[in-house]
């Protein structure tokens, strides 16, 4: 069946476009051979009619359905010298056309011919049907205590993204749990992409090319997670010369080295970051910081021929720490120590067949997470998940529409030793295989000068033979653009076979146990979202977006009045609804945005005992990540080599459970001898999560100055203040001891970065 489908697709593509030509190729930066994304490539004929396309994250562009003839080619990209050329295309010709753009161009003047802006989903207010693209330049504007910047710092400025705080490394996106977010780096799954210190992800911004963040409504290409997708592509190493950077700051020291192994053909990129908390941050902050973390990244990229590229990427990250330590003794104790290690490696092969207008991508990867709690050598619980994945993604370029389809096979191993902590989860090693495929197409329903309407329907099929489960997941994305207006919408069905269980009742416990869906019912989500965006001036963009998610078959920790170390899992369902508004200003030297997000997350859990207390039908509550209101504001001023950044965050209080007090409970199951019954200590909880912590807000500022030495050497000095007005933001309060743990206080920092 699959072969027949393949043949049909290839035959259709070949026949339909036998008479038309195809122009395709890679666009790179002449300076270092990096692919350039968003380059507009336009073919104009003598009559002025034009065809065009924009390059993707690989720098690949493809223009198909070109009638034979002579054309003027114009390729432009902001900040680069435009390329002009004349081409003659024969009927049925597939012309490879790789070229490099040189930096230094001024304002690009292509008249009204702009196929695609630099990246139409890039920018703080450029959200399109849940998708926002994050560039390294965006990340650099977020004040942080070090010079390298980090994706994690940027993500928490997005409305609808809730972090567990400065500590914990947990990110909730539009109501989704951290383990419901899929983070892919060059197509490789990263299980736990954030470090324990909330400023940092496991993926430094210095290696980033671009990150697509789908807060919901993602297309059929993605699957296996039910909330969001963060699709990160990393840079290739410099193919022209060796370069690098080293930085030092109170939390982290980082180094990066890249260069050609074979000039213009093979490059490497490697980076490493190590915490220096003991030597730096601990000396300037009057708080316990019992954290240790590091990450290492290596990538080798090769242009193996005019039509083929291959890369091998590896990432390792390590985190160890104690959340909630108030004293040195608690910080030194390993009893409550949490540890996780990510290991990921994968290869990506990209092929442009010479005879058919197709791009083929093949991915093979391995990734794993080791998560434990307690002493490192003898943890009180541990969990390990591994995934071996092989997939192929094919895109057919045609004049009318591009068709993408793919198939994959995954082999998963899940292994936990929970020692009864999660009462319903088996400690047996689980092996689960998964196979599936998808097909999606982008149909330009309307394509006129000032009006376009693109619809992207898709369907994804997943099969778990060892579980006897199959899922069919229809997806739909649509974008209507009319002049300065853009309306977008997305919807889809999502399933998640593998879940990460965490005891969210305890904010200080970030241990996650990976397992198959414990109830036997696979978690499922429906997404529906829609937005409007307007760009009334080139320096101003305004966007609003609303979303709704319906969640089923969730697993939540049981509610119990007895303080204890074990957790029983109870079924729940939920809804997430909300909306956000964004304003983005870019006047050149000043860039800024302000956004507001509203979100309401409601779970309904089913636990017989609690229903005795609060009534039948499940108990409805707001889970601890239900932050209702958020405001993020960023201002960045750039004068020559001087940059001043300020960011202010506000978040309304997170839910927590209040109590009426404590007592002892005697089981009154009949007449008792009260002299023989000491009773069991009990928490007299009020309604679960009915209280709200105080609001959270923080101002971060940073100033940087870069001293340049020659063409490619620079020394940048940073001075920053995180939590500049020393707001005492509460992380959590221990109900049993009434001790509060606050987020990090004012952190003054200086840092240095040397680039060469």
């Amino acid at each position, binding site marked *: 069946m699959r072969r027949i489908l393949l043949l049909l697709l290839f035959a259709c593509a070949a026949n339909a476009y036998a008479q038309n030509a195809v122009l395709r190729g890679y666009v790179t930066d002449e300076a270092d051979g990096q692919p350039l994304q968003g380059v507009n490539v336009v073919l104009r004929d003598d009559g002025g009619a034009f065809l065009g396309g924009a390059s993707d994250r690989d720098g690949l562009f493809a223009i198909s359905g070109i009638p034979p003839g002579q054309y003027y080619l114009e390729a432009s990209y902001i900040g680069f010298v435009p390329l002009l050329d004349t081409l003659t295309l024969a009927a049925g010709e597939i012309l490879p056309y790789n070229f490099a753009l040189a930096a230094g161009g001024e304002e690009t003047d292509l008249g009204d011919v702009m196929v695609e802006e630099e990246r139409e989903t890039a920018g703080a207010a450029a959200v399109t049907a849940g998708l926002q693209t994050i560039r390294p330049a965006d990340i650099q504007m977020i004040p942080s205590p070090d010079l390298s910047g980090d994706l994690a710092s940027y993500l928490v400025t997005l409305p609808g993204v809730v972090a567990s705080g400065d500590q914990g490394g947990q990110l909730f996106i539009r109501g989704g749990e951290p383990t419901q977010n899929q983070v892919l780096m060059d197509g490789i799954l990263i299980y736990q992409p954030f470090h324990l210190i909330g400023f940092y992800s496991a993926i430094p911004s210095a290696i980033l090319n671009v990150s697509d963040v789908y807060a919901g409504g993602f297309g059929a290409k993605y699957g296996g997670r039910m909330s969001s997708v963060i699709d990160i592509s990393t840079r290739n190493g410099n193919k022209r010369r060796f370069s690098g950077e080293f930085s030092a700051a109170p939390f982290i020291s980082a180094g990066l080295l890249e260069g050609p192994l074979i000039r213009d053909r093979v490059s490497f990129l490697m980076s490493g970051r190590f915490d220096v908390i003991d030597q730096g941050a601990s000396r300037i902050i009057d708080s316990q910081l019992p954290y240790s973390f590091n990450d290492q990244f290596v990538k080798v990229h090769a242009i193996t021929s005019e039509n083929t590229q291959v890369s091998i990427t590896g990432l390792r990250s390590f985190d160890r720490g104690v959340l909630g330590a108030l004293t040195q003794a608690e910080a030194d104790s390993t009893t409550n120590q949490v540890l996780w290690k990510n290991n990921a490696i994968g290869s990506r092969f990209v092929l442009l067949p010479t005879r058919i207008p197709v791009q083929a991508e093949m991915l093979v990867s391995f990734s794993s997470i080791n998560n434990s709690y307690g002493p490192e050598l003898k943890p009180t619980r541990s969990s390990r998940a591994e995934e071996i994945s092989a997939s192929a993604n094919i895109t057919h370029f045609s004049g009318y529409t591009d068709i993408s389809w793919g198939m994959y096979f995954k082999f998963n191993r899940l292994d936990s030793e929970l020692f009864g902590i999660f009462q319903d989860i088996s400690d047996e090693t689980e092996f689960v295989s998964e196979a599936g495929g998808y097909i999606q197409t982008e149909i330009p329903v309307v394509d006129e000068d000032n009006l376009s309407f693109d619809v992207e329907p898709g369907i994804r099929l997943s099969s778990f033979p060892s579980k006897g489960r199959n899922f069919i997941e229809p997806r739909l994305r649509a974008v209507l653009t009319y002049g300065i207006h853009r309306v977008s919408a997305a919807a889809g069905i999502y399933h998640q076979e593998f879940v990460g269980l965490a005891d969210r009742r305890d904010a200080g416990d970030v241990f996650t146990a990976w397992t198959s869906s414990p109830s036997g019912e696979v978690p499922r989500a429906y997404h529906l979202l829609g937005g409007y965006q307007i760009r009334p001036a080139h320096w101003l963009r305004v966007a609003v977006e609303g979303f709704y998610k319906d969640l089923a078959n969730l697993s939540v920790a049981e509610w119990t009045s007895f303080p204890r170390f074990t957790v029983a899992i109870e079924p729940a369902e939920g809804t997430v609804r909300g909306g956000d508004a964004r304003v983005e200003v870019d006047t050149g030297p000043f860039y800024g945005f*302000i956004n507001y997000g509203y979100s309401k997350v409601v779970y309904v859990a089913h636990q017989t005992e609690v229903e*005795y*207390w609060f009534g039948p039908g499940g108990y409805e509550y707001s889970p601890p990540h239900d932050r209702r209101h958020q405001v993020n*504001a960023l201002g960045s001023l750039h004068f020559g080599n001087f940059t001043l950044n300020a960011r202010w965050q506000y978040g309304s209080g997170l839910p*927590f459970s209040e109590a*009426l*007090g*404590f007592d002892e409970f005697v089981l009154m199951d*009949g007449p008792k001898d009260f*002299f023989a019954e000491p009773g069991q200590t009990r928490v007299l909880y009020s309604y679960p999560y009915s209280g709200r912590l105080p609001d959270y807000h923080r101002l971060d500022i940073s100033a940087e100055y870069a001293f340049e030495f020659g063409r490619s050497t620079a020394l940048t000095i940073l001075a920053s203040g995180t939590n500049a007005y020393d707001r005492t933001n509460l992380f959590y309060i221990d109900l049993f001891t009434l001790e509060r743990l606050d987020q990090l206080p004012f952190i003054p920092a200086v840092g240095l970065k040397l680039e060469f």
Partner: protein
Amino acid sequence: MRFPSLILVLLVAVALTSCDESINPILETDRQYTLFGTLDMATDTQFVRVIAIRPTLTAPDQKLDIIFTSQQAGSDIIHTWTDSIHTFEDGSAGHIFYAPFRVHAGKYYNIAVHKPGSELATTAFTQVPNHLEPSVQQEKLTWVQTTTLVATQRILWWSLDEDPYDIVQWYRFFIFDDYGFVDIRINHQPASKASDTHEGFWETRLDLVRDRDSLLANHPEMFTRGFLAGLGMTLTVLDKDWTPPGGVFTAEALGQPGTLSNVVNGFGYIGAVGRFSAEWLIQDTSAITLGYRVLDSEAFPDVAAQVWNAPVGSLEQVRE
């Protein structure tokens, strides 16, 4: 928004919101005490555990300065209970209040706990189960195919329309050597649990052969040294409100505050326990057929008088 304006907005926002906020996760409440106890017809002293609801996990080791009273509805008598600090086996301590009085079937009792000078009281209200009227039916002995004996007896408990909490059944023997009575408890439950609740009464059905076999196995000396001097049964009945949600007593269910609670301005449960007994004799011929020895009333008239002159249900004592 121009940059200076943004800075101004930020500064105003900071000025308005930079104060610290404290938080107390323990809510204020009128619920002051948790009470666990029983008013039991079987005892002449009543006990109630009193736990002050506290804002910390660990209990302070201090005296409870409270006034604990109880009053039977319709009566002027108010009992003031006495505090005792009891150290449990696990080393923890608790306040157990007690008062020496008996409670009576069908009566209502009000319990109140309050601090001296405070009008706010933690109260509970409970009713001891109504008096039960047992009706002992004549035992029936039947031989099946001349080799198998079937012997049953029905006891009807009028006014009981729910399953009792517990049933204790015993056989009374007169030990001539000691010149005294011994009550032997039947360890297996009588057929009571299988009994049906009928309109107006609740029925216990005894299997006299099974009882005999049990006694023979566990106390064979009663068949050589003792004389059957009576049968008895005590039903323990809980008050009508003492019903667990879902029908099963579990810590997870009952541990939810407010679940199975009759305490106002507090938590916990004060139950009332009714104890109702019946004693009777079976016919000598039946006893002998079952293998028991019976007293010769003419030879031992004083013993016989004790046994036979007692009205059914008047002997309210059970010995294990």
